[in-house]
């Protein structure tokens, strides 16, 4: 066993003989670590719940539709549908901050899709590759459209699961060639099953999707768009991003104040955004409290260690006389505070995650236990043990052994 191992073991034996002092320091730090771990566990649970809601309801997506608000209820053929262009999408992408994905969207009903002796009539969408993530969709088989499909105006198609079942009852749609309005298209992927919405109108399993360039130049052969969709990086900034898009498009389309717009920006309902806001304020507050508690725990360790150094000056002198170097004394006291801090961290992290899990089970909070609170507690306790331990340890090393061993106090 090396010298430092022997000293570490001696410290553990010493600590086990000073239970009440050690217990006080351990509990002092455990409180802060417990609050911190509970905040992390509940914070992660809340975050997961909100991300689930965002995912489910597309709360981070904003849609710009061609045609003004008043025209939404007008017959489709009467709307000012030629107002929205791909250049508008590129301008949004370039000029509005906190937006990370943008896709221009075209669509047209009554598209004929034929394979062998089977055929369907469905609605086709022309989209950009980012659309998949913006709409929180995914493909079950094959792949989604790529940038090179866009660049090549490729005749490729991703189909809804109902289309796949109708045309390929035996399966194996990916890689086959279907005829879309009489032109050959390769099936690149099949969407996961989404089901119809409650109204039964918007059936995303009965759709096909082609690259925007393909729809604009080949399939629909027109430049204007039905929609632009974009994703906002932070749910809380959706209203702000939507407002900026509104202003940008008004300028681009030459619409003055008070004039009716030829587009409509539809935001997701902001209820959950407010919930997220409230929960993040609360966790910031709790986080601050736990940091204060951690520092208080650290200061408590430092004070008790300083008192211990003063009380044990004879022991320090004795150890020096027995051959301990100043660095051995520093190491001894630093290890003491480090071990105590780690014990406090272990107690605190178990208590904190336990409390958070209990709150979660009681339905009073969303909790999710991961390795994160354990890692954070370990790092925090190592830091606290070293930061608040170094001063007492240095002080211990500076004890004059000659004076200490002569001390007459019993």
């Amino acid at each position, binding site marked *: 066993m090396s*010298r430092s191992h022997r000293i570490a073991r001696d410290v553990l034996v010493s600590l086990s003989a000073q239970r009440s002092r050690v217990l006080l320091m351990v509990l002092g730090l455990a409180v802060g670590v417990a609050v911190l771990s509970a905040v992390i566990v509940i914070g992660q649970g809340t975050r997961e719940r909100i991300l689930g809601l965002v995912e489910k309801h597309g709360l981070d997506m904003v849609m710009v539709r061609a045609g003004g608000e008043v025209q939404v209820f007008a017959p489709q053929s009467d709307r000012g549908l030629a107002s929205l262009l791909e250049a508008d999408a590129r301008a949004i992408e370039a000029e509005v901050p906190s937006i990370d994905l943008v896709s221009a969207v075209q669509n047209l009903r009554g598209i004929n899709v034929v394979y062998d002796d089977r055929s369907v009539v469905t609605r086709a969408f022309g989209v950009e590759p980012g659309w998949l993530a913006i709409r929180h969709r995914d493909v079950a088989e094959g792949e989604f459209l790529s940038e090179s499909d866009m660049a090549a105006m490729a005749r490729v198609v991703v189909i809804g699961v109902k289309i796949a079942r109708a045309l390929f009852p035996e399966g194996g749609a990916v890689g086959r060639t279907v005829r879309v309005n009489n032109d050959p298209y390769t099936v690149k992927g099949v969407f996961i099953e989404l089901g119809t919405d409650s109204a039964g109108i918007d059936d995303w399993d009965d759709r096909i999707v082609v690259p925007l360039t393909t729809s604009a130049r080949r399939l629909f052969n027109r430049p204007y768009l039905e929609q632009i969709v974009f994703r906002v990086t932070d749910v809380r900034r959706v209203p702000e991003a939507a407002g900026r898009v509104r202003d940008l498009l008004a300028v681009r389309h030459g619409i003055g104040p008070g004039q009716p717009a030829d587009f409509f920006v539809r935001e997701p309902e902001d209820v959950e955004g407010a919930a997220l806001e409230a929960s993040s304020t609360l966790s910031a507050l709790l986080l601050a409290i736990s940091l204060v508690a951690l520092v208080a725990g650290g200061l408590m360790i430092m004070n008790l260690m300083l008192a211990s150094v003063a009380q044990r000056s*004879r022991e320090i*002198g004795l150890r020096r006389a*027995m051959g301990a*170097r100043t*660095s051995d004394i520093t190491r001894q006291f630093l290890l003491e505070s480090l071990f105590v801090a780690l014990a406090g961290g272990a107690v605190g992290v178990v208590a904190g995650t336990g409390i958070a899990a209990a709150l979660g089970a009681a339905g009073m909070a969303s909790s999710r236990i991961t390795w994160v609170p354990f890692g954070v507690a370990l790092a925090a306790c190592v830091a606290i043990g070293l930061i608040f331990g170094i001063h007492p340890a240095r002080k211990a090393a500076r004890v004059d052994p*000659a004076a200490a061993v*002569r001390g007459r106090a*019993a």
Partner: protein
Amino acid sequence: MIDVEALTRLYVRDTLETHVLKGVTFRVPRGEFLVIMGRSGSGKSTLLNILGLLDRPDSGRYLLDGVDFAGADDDRRSAARNRKLGFVFQQFHLLERASALRNVTLPLLYAEEDSGDATRRAEQALEAVGLAHRARHLPSELSGGEQQRVAIARALINDPAVILADEPTGNLDAESGREILDIFRRLVGSGRTLVLVTHDRTVAERADRILVLDDGRIVGEEAAPSPAAGARSPAAGLA
């Protein structure tokens, strides 16, 4: 073994200078039992701390086993304390919460190399001072004489050439004090060098030689008739 020449030590507190040692010169050959006698404040404890490499002289020369540690760093001086020196104090300085056995193993903690079976060595050291049966006891469960014997076992565990004792019998009754001095005589008989400081004449009489220190200077030297070496053989007499 110990060679001291013109040692001085000056303490400065605020602006007040105290000359504790004012030029002390003496030698201790290997295997000698030397007592340094002096009143409280004569500088004997300071001298012992310098001999123990716990303090440094302001001037003069000190060779321990032929080596001058004046310019040595803390690590080398600590290693020398660990290997070459054994300390015995008036207050025993045992760790209160540690068993006799663990107290005895303390110097092994700071040895350069692992000693192997520390427990076995500590048991042997305790046996050498007649305390093998008390190995698991805490200091508070031992008498003063027993505590000092534990401290001697601790001083012996690294097999040092020199033992330095500061009033080792000062806190003991006469009977226990005699037992401790008997142990010291045995150690000297087995070739160790012993330097003991005391103000007690009856303790000094067990030594091979006595130096009398007063006000930081050696003012007298005498060869004492020690019971082991001399008392029962009057021929030892004065040098």
